[in-house]
C-alpha cells in the first residue's frame, strides 16, 4: 500500500521543552487517520510540521512524497487544510470564496468554473451561490470549507478539529463526505475532541506528552484496553484513569 504521510522519529523541541517526541507512524492512501490527544499533547505541533509550517528539530517526515525539511513549498501545493474555524471569508459570497481559494492554489479559470458548479451542485448550494457566507448555517459552512480544502484535489487533507460546535446530525453528514473522499483515494488526517468520531476512523493514534502512546484500529484498541468505547481507551491513556 502506498504511504502518503510518513513520520519517522519526528521531534520538535522549543528550548528545553519537547513538544513532539520521536513520533513514528505511516498513513495509507485513502485512509482516515485519527490524530487524538489532550490539549498540549503535541498534536498541533506535529500537524504544523507535516504541513510545512514548522521545521522539525530532528527525525524525518514525508508528506505526499515530499520532505518536510526541504520541500515545504511542494507540500503546501499538495495538501488540503481545514481548521476548526472553517476558514471561509464571511464577507465574500460562496462563489467568491471558491474562486479565491481556486486562485491561490493555482487553478485555471475554466477549472475554477467547473469546480464551482460541481460544488454548488453537490452541496445543493445553487440558490445561495451569490449570498455572503456569513448568512449560511454552520453545517453548510463546514461542508463548503471541506469542499474548498479539496478544491485542488490534494492526495492528503489535514482537518484540525473540523467538527467543533456542530450538532451530531450535521457531524454525521460531514463524516459521510469524509468517507466518500477517502473511498476516492484521498487520505484524511483528522484531529478531534469527539470520541464517537474516533470510532469512525480507520486507525487512530493517541498522543500523550509528546509521544504516541497507542496506534491501531479503534476496535483493537478497545479490546487491548478492555473497555467498551474509544472514550475509555482515551481516559486510560491520556488521563491515566479508567472510567470503569
Amino acid at each position: 500500500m502506498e504511504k502518503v504521510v510518513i513520520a519517522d522519529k519526528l521531534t520538535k523541541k522549543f528550548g528545553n521543552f519537547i513538544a513532539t517526541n520521536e513520533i513514528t507512524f505511516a498513513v495509507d492512501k485513502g485512509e482516515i487517520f485519527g490524530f487524538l490527544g489532550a490539549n498540549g499533547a503535541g498534536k498541533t505541533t506535529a500537524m504544523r510540521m507535516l504541513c510545512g509550517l514548522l521545521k522539525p528539530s530532528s527525525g524525518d517526515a514525508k508528506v505526499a512524497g515530499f520532505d518536510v525539511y526541504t520541500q515545504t513549498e511542494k507540500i503546501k501545493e499538495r495538501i488540503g487544510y481545514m481548521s476548526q474555524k472553517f476558514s471561509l471569508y464571511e464577507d465574500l459570497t460562496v462563489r467568491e470564496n471558491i474562486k479565491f481559494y481556486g486562485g491561490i492554489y493555482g487553478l485555471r479559470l475554466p477549472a475554477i468554473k467547473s469546480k464551482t458548479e460541481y460544488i454548488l451542485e453537490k452541496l445543493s448550494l445553487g440558490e445561495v451561490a451569490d449570498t455572503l457566507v456569513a448568512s449560511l448555517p454552520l453545517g453548510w459552512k463546514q461542508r463548503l470549507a471541506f469542499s474548498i480544502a479539496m478544491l485542488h484535489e490534494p492526495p492528503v487533507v489535514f482537518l484540525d478539529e473540523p467538527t467543533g460546535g456542530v450538532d451530531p446530525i450535521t457531524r454525521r453528514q460531514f463524516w459521510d463526505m469524509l468517507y466518500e473522499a477517502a473511498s476516492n483515494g484521498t487520505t484524511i488526517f483528522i484531529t478531534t475532541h469527539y470520541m464517537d468520531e474516533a470510532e469512525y476512523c480507520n486507525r487512530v493514534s493517541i498522543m500523550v506528552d509528546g509521544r504516541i502512546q497507542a496506534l491501531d484500529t479503534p476496535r483493537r484498541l478497545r479490546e487491548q484496553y478492555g473497555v467498551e468505547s474509544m472514550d475509555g481507551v482515551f481516559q486510560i491513556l491520556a488521563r491515566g484513569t479508567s472510567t470503569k
Partner: protein
Amino acid sequence: MKRFFSFVHKEFLHIFRDKRTLLILFGLPFVQVLLFGFALTNEISYAKIAILDNDKGMHSRKITHRLLSSGYFRLEENLTTYADIEKAFRKGKIKMVVVFPQDFDSEYERSKGAHIQLLADASEQNTAISLVNYASAIIGDYSAAQNPVASSPMMIDVRSRMVFNPELKGAFVFVPGVMAMVLLLVSAMMTSVTIAREKEMGTMEVLSVSPLTQSQIIFGKVLPYLLLSFINGCLIIALGVWVLDMPMNGNLLLLLTETLLFIFLSLSIGIFISTLTDSQLVAMFASLVILLMPTIFLSGFIFPIESMPKPLQVVSNIIPAKYFIAIVKGIMIKGVGIGYLLKETLILLAMAGLFIFMSLRKLKTRSL
C-alpha cells in the same frame, strides 16, 4: 503571479464590500480638509466690536471709520457709558471694545499724546491678540498719515512682509498636516486591522498552509491600500489647490513621489503593528494612540514645534509626519526641489527601512 492577483482581488472585494471602511477611506479626507481648511483658521474677518466714543470729535470718527472699513472689524453697537462695556462683553457677541476718552480730539491736537483704550475678550487669547494687533496697526497708520512731516527724523520705519504666505492663510498649514494625518491613519490602521482580522478569523492559518508565500501575503495586503491611499493623497492635493487656493509652486511629480514614499512608510508601520498583535481591536487602538495623537500634537501640524518644551521638541523628531509636512510645504508653497528636501526624504526612507526590518525579524521568530 496569478495566485498573487487572486489574493489582491480578494482584498479589493473585502474593501469594497465594507461600506463603512470605504466611507472612512474617502469621506475622512474630504471632511478633514474642508473642516481644517475653512473652520480652523487663524484669519480674522469682520470681528464684532463695540465703540465707546466719549469725545465724538473728528479724529475719533475718522479712526472709527478706518477700523470699520479695514475688513477686519464690524460695528456691533455703540456704547454710551463705561458700565456698558462689561455688559457688552458678557453678552459674548463682541470681541473688542475701542474707547476714546473725553478730550481725545483736543489732547491729540495739542500735545500729540492722546490715548485710546482697546479692550479685548481674552477668553479666546489668540483672537484677542490678533485683534489688538490689527487695531493698533490701523490706528498707528492713521496717526502717521496725519503728520508725515512732523515725524521725528530718527524714527525707524518697520516694514514687514509675510514671505510665501502673504495673506497668512491657515490652509497653507493645515492641508499638508491633514494630508499627513489621513495618509498615515488610513494606510497604517487599515493594513494592521486587515491583517489582524485574518488572524482573528483563522483564515491566516489557511493562507499560511496554502502555496502563497509570506511576502506574497504581505504585499497582497499592502498593494490595495497603497493604491487607495495614493488616490486619497491626490484627492487631498486637488482639494487643497482648487478649493482652498493652495499654491502649487513646485514639481508635482516630486510631490507625488514623496507622497508615495510616505504612504509606503505608513504601510510598513501598519505591518509592524500587526506583527505585535492578533486582535483587530488592539491593532486599531495601537494605530490611533501611536499614530494619531503624536501626529496631531507633535508634528507641528496644529501647535508650532518651536513653542513646545525642549523634551517634546526632541520627541517630535521621531514623528514621521513632521518630515512629510515639511516636504509638502516645501514643494507646494516654497516651490523647492529635491535638493532642499534631501534630509527629510532620507529620514522617511530610513524609517520605512527600519520598520520593514523590524517586521521581518518579528515574522521570522513566529509565523504570521
